[in-house]
């Protein structure tokens, strides 16, 4: 396990070194390794495939420009890259909250895209997909502060301390927002008849 971790780290360092030297295929490898994770994170905040796509592109442009700043001593490539992506996506989300005319949330078409995009073979699979759509709809209905904390804690599975570092707010505030956000989400999902007992 430790050997695998070291190998991944070395692989990351080597990829970045090749990118800095101008090797296009190394950059392509980074893009294909991380684009799905970053796109999905962007989608959870934007609730729109198009907006998430644009945001993912912006994030990669920024990553490309800042590859020089990557220092292997500060953690492996995946951590550094996802931290950067998270910060950019949250900044964008906060910016859109301040300027609601740019907001693309609650776009029904986007949610249904999610359903259409997958195969409809098994009933269980359809139900699972439907649950995911409902969860995203539920998250969309949360106030921005609570929504950010719920996504970071219960979907991205960051620790309290990591959330404190990303959002730059006190730990007590993070804890109470997570608690409030979970309760609000449960109530929203109850109204949608998703979590009824």
């Amino acid at each position, binding site marked *: 396990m430790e050997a695998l971790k070291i190998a991944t780290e070395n692989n990351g360092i080597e990829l970045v*070194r*090749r990118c*800095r*030297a*101008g*090797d*296009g*295929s190394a*950059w*392509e490898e980074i*893009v*294909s390794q991380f*684009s*799905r*994770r970053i*796109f*999905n994170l962007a*989608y959870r905040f934007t609730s729109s*495939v198009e907006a998430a*796509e644009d945001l*993912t*592109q912006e994030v*990669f*442009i920024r990553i*490309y420009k800042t590859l020089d700043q990557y220092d292997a001593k500060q953690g492996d490539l995946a951590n550094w890259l996802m931290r950067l992506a998270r910060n950019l996506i949250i900044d964008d989300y906060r910016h859109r909250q301040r300027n609601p005319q740019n907001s693309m949330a609650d776009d029904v078409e986007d949610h249904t895209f*999610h359903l259409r*995009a997958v195969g409809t073979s098994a009933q269980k699979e359809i139900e*699972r*997909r439907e*649950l*995911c759509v*409902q*969860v*995203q709809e*539920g998250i969309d209905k949360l106030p921005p502060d609570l929504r950010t904390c*719920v996504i970071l804690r*219960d*979907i*991205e*599975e960051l620790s309290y301390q990591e959330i404190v570092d990303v959002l730059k707010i006190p730990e007590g505030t993070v*804890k*109470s927002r*997570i*608690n*409030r956000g*979970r*309760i609000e*989400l*449960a*109530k929203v*999902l*109850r109204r949608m008849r*998703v*979590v*009824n*007992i």
Partner: protein
Amino acid sequence: MNYTDEKIIKCSEFEELLTDYLDGALDKQTHKAVAAHALRCPLCHALLNEVKDALELCHEMTAPKASLTHLEARILTMTAPETAMSCSQFEEHLTDYLDGFLPATLFHRWERHAVLCESCTDLPGEVVRSIAACYTYKMDELPIPEGLHAKILQSTLGTTKAKAVKASWSSQAAEWMRGFRLPISIPQLAPVAMIMLFAVLFFGSTVSADGSFGGVYQKSFELAEQTYKQSADAVLGGEETNEKKSTQEPVRGTFVDNEEKK
């Protein structure tokens, strides 16, 4: 054991005595006789077991834990109303309860509220389910839209054919050199580098021609004297040349050689 005194009962009698036997209401001798019959007769033994199981089941049904807790909660709320918890307090502590971080005093008050309050009683279960739903959602990642990779490559590399972009020799060499700038960039070596730099500057600038440090001070005294004389001349005027000659006292250091040559 004396078998002659043993009381023997029939199957029909066993059935009649069974309830009293289980309640422990029989006299010693009859109790023994019933037990002995149960051991001898497999049919009566099976009947005894069935009745025992049914009775146990009845006990469990008549004393369910939940109703006791509910009753307990009601009694406590009526007798110690000051320990009751409001719905907002209940919600405030929900995550701590789920994480197991709630202190004992709060824990009991919280559980009591969960049992008694109809609007809150389902909430913890619903929160757990919605966290689980979030986890399912996390596992279910959207596929990347078609063409996104190409867009990213175009906006960063300027082409979608990434493999065609090769590293030049010079940039490879520059990247290779990056690794060799390390000694100074290692934080532990920074003080050493500072000391060495300081030493070079100190020795380089302060040792005079004869190798002594003292010359420096004498030189500075001399310069100070010259400056004083120049300013005095500027104020008083005249005799500049003579005065200047007289200031050229031999000093140790850089001027010593000149004096010696003279």
